[in-house]
């Protein structure tokens, strides 16, 4: 059906990656460059009384030591993308004078070599006045006299309601569950890295491993009092992000130091710094109460969430809000209320992580659904079928259509492929040490930010004289194959081989505007922009050909890199001929710039089925089988869609069973290294079967929908539901580690 769409391609720079040729920010070298090293706070809460850097400054090779004493005290929000953006609490300084978590930015050394910078850090003496550390949300809310920020420890709260409360039948039941989700490290293999260069023309250039160059530019320019045209943010190749590089975490610091010194400065974090001092998936605690009919129809749902923002606000207001907008995309519930308190604590800063509030609320909700199923003795799949949204349903939170929402189909086809009924009814063998169980979970995510944020993208496609093309869009390849997908879309429309189209990456000096790689918007919005722009270029090609061939445009068609007369196919021109003659004879350039406005935000859905085997002697859990079924509209690049699902499940298993950034009572991070922060490795990863449902029906390019976040959301609850089914438990304090399993088994 399609020449390019629906065929698997590798990422565009796979060859360079296997050759080790890609230069990530930490690989970069610039002439005359300097190296920065951070001094981060060892205590969770305190005032900086003094910083004595005299010994560090005397060390040969040290150029300067920076701290709050010699840096701007202007407060900013590192989450902001656009000017005047709401919900961006400005509560950070480049270097703080009051530390608010272990890992807060106290100072930095810039030196001629990295080794000298490291040595100099140990020569800086900082005196702190320790303040009480409030390391849990409960402590922060109780201790009103200990203020993490002057505005108080409650950063924000909301109380949202949708729908109408229906009268309840006499035989309805009420179920209440509470689930704690933990701080999680994004664990991209590449730690954050940046190279900034402020040159003598007064221009700042920064290479950043980031998900949105224009957001970084806005923050840096506003903070350092530069005009936007004098700040150039170039997206460096990214070694994974998953949301962890979507905020301007260290760009302000590196940019400021480079501007001050008027030399290139490189900052590359190590793993401990990436775990502690960048951002974490937020820890949350949600109590869910539903009123359910005996038939299993949810009549009302009330949620109360405590959201741990950590030491600074960044994205937590929006991230907390996002939690309230997920369930209504998935289940048709007449009445839904969500109260949330978003609270500062003296712990590593929370930020958006893949799924952006989705995993944080859907894991609790899917665990809750299994509790409802258990109470009513209804099969978990059947219970969900009775409550999930249908195609064309309206999202009560936004009043937008959920589009061609195929979640019920995902669930039913998945249940069949997984042999759910047979495996679920098998039950667990109580006498056996090894207990097997199966679990299911559903999820919804979105496609872009329409409905809550401006949503548009601009691209330019220009045709070269030889019939090749350059597509210039502000694109951020994060490893999922964005550049390839955009290229495939344009190649399909223009009907040329993929290698005849070069797709550029984000650079604020050269790229047209785009908000960045967030909110699962890139395929749906940028992809459709590429398709429409390519269509317009094709029109231009036909227009030019019409002039050259002295033939009405209506008689012409373009196929296979050629334009020909429909009625006399032998009368044709190659793209090369059209482009060259147009440019050199007819003085016409074939170049189109187009802005696409998103006007819809359908759901992207998935149902995951997991089988686990629990060793009741040790509490260790093995995921023995896994099936992921996804409603993707259309798979632009099926192999990469599968790849996204596989990676999502790896993250979800970790979220369910292993991964946690644990904080001690004094605020120290206990798991500050891969020695004790475990992500799933190859031997522990199950084979993940994938079933894609491509039913189209929405506004994405070739009717495609998103996958990367949608696939992350159901994975943890599928595993947790499986293990609770295997053991007959109701564990919900994530991650479900062996000690918690053993404690529950000993209780029973």
């Amino acid at each position: 059906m399609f020449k390019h769409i629906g065929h698997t391609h590798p990422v565009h720079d796979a060859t360079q990656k296997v050759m080790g040729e890609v230069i990530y920010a930490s690989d970069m070298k610039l002439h005359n460059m300097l190296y920065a090293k951070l001094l981060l706070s060892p205590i969770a809460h305190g005032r900086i009384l003094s910083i004595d850097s005299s010994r560090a400054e005397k060390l040969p090779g040290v150029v300067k030591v920076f701290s709050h004493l010699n840096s701007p005290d202007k407060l900013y929000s590192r989450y902001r993308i656009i000017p005047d953006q709401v919900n961006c609490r400005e509560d950070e300084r480049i270097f703080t004078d009051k530390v608010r978590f272990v890992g807060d930015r106290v100072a930095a050394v810039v030196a001629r070599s990295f080794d000298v910078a490291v040595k100099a850090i140990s020569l800086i003496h900082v005196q702190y006045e320790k303040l009480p550390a409030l390391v849990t949300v409960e402590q922060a809310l109780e201790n009103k006299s200990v203020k993490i920020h002057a505005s108080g420890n409650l950063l924000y709260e909301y109380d949202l309601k949708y729908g109408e409360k229906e009268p309840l039948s006499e035989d309805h039941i009420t179920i209440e569950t509470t689930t704690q989700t933990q701080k999680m490290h994004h664990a991209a293999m590449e730690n954050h890295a940046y190279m900034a260069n402020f040159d003598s023309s007064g221009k700042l250039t920064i290479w950043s491993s980031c998900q949105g160059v224009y957001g970084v530019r806005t923050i840096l320019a506003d903070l350092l009092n530069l005009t936007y045209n004098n700040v150039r943010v170039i997206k460096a190749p990214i070694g994974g992000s998953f949301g962890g590089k979507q905020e301007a975490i260290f760009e302000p610091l590196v940019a400021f130091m480079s501007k001050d010194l008027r030399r290139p400065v490189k900052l590359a974090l190590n793993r401990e710094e990436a775990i502690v001092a960048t951002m974490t998936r937020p820890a949350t605690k949600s109590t869910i109460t539903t009123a359910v009919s005996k038939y299993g129809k949810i009549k009302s749902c009330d949620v109360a969430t405590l959201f741990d923002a950590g030491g600074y606000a960044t994205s937590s207001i929006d991230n907390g809000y996002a939690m309230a907008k997920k369930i209504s995309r998935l289940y048709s519930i007449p009445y839904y209320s969500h109260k949330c308190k978003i609270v500062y604590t003296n712990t590593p800063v929370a930020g958006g992580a893949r799924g952006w509030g989705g995993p944080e609320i859907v894991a609790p909700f899917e665990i809750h659904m299994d509790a409802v199923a258990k109470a009513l003795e209804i099969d978990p799949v059947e219970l969900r079928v009775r409550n999930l949204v249908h195609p064309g349903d309206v999202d009560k939170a936004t009043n937008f259509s959920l589009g061609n929402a195929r979640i019920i189909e995902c669930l039913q086809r998945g249940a069949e492929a997984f042999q759910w009924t047979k495996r679920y009814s098998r039950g667990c063998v109580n006498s056996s040490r090894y207990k097997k169980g199966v679990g299911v979970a559903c999820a919804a995510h979105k496609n872009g930010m329409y409905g809550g944020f401006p949503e548009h993208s601009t691209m330019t496609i220009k045709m070269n004289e030889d019939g090749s093309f350059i597509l210039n869009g502000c694109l951020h390849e994060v490893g999922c194959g964005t550049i390839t997908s955009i290229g495939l879309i344009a190649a399909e429309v223009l009907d040329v081989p993929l290698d005849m189209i070069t797709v550029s990456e984000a650079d604020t000096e050269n790229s047209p505007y785009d908000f960045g790689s967030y909110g699962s918007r890139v395929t749906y919005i940028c992809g459709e922009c590429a398709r429409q722009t390519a269509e317009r270029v094709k029109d231009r090609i036909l227009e030019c050909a019409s002039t050259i061939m002295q033939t009405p445009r209506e008689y012409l068609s373009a196929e296979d890199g050629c334009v020909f007369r429909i009625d006399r196919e032998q009368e044709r021109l190659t793209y090369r001929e059209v482009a060259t003659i147009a440019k050199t004879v007819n003085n016409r350039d074939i170049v189109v710039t187009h802005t696409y406005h998103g006007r819809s935000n359908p759901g992207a859905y998935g149902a995951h089925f997991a089988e686990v085997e629990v060793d009741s002697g040790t509490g260790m859990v093995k995921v023995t089988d896994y099936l992921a079924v996804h409603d993707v509209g259309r798979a632009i690049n099926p192999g990469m869609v599968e790849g996204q699902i596989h990676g999502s499940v790896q993250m979800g298993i970790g979220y369910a069973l292993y991964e946690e950034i644990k904080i001690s009572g004094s605020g120290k991070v206990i798991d500050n290294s891969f020695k004790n922060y475990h992500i799933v490795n190859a031997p522990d990863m199950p084979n993940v079967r994938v079933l894609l449902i491509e039913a189209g029906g929405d506004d994405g390019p070739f009717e495609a929908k998103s996958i990367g976040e949608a696939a992350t959301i159901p994975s943890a609850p599928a595993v947790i539901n499986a293990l609770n089914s295997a053991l007959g438990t109701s564990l919900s304090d994530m991650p479900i580690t062996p000690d918690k399993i053993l404690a529950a088994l000993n209780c029973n």
Partner: protein
Amino acid sequence: MFIKFKVNGDDYEIDVPPAIRLIDILRDHLGLTGTKEGCGEGECGTCTVIMDSKSVNSCLVIASQIRGKEILTVEGLAEDGKLDALQESFIRNGAVQCGYCTPGMLMAAKALLMERSDPTEDEIRGAISGNLCRCTGYSKIVQAIKDVA
């Protein structure tokens, strides 16, 4: 300390502090930045190289240990621009996403295949058990290695 060693078939003789890490020699002194640093403590495998036919975490090897050794890095896999079979298989099988774990994965896989042909899936997963990947979920990497085994 003067040390003589081979990297990717080339002879080197350099003067370095004895405790400097191999990863720093490769990246900073020899300009071979294909080998990556993900954790600095031998847990993530992004720094995997092959030393005298065995895969090692180059962040845990120090200069004094590489005297007279033959080291193979990702830059040494292709010959005259022609990709090694493993590299081609990684591309063909979609085993490359962000690319950061890729050099280390390739070297761990190469070391396995230098030692044995026709490894089982369990042996493949075992050989890359010290190479973490956050993007791919490992399936396509394992398939890529199987294809060449």
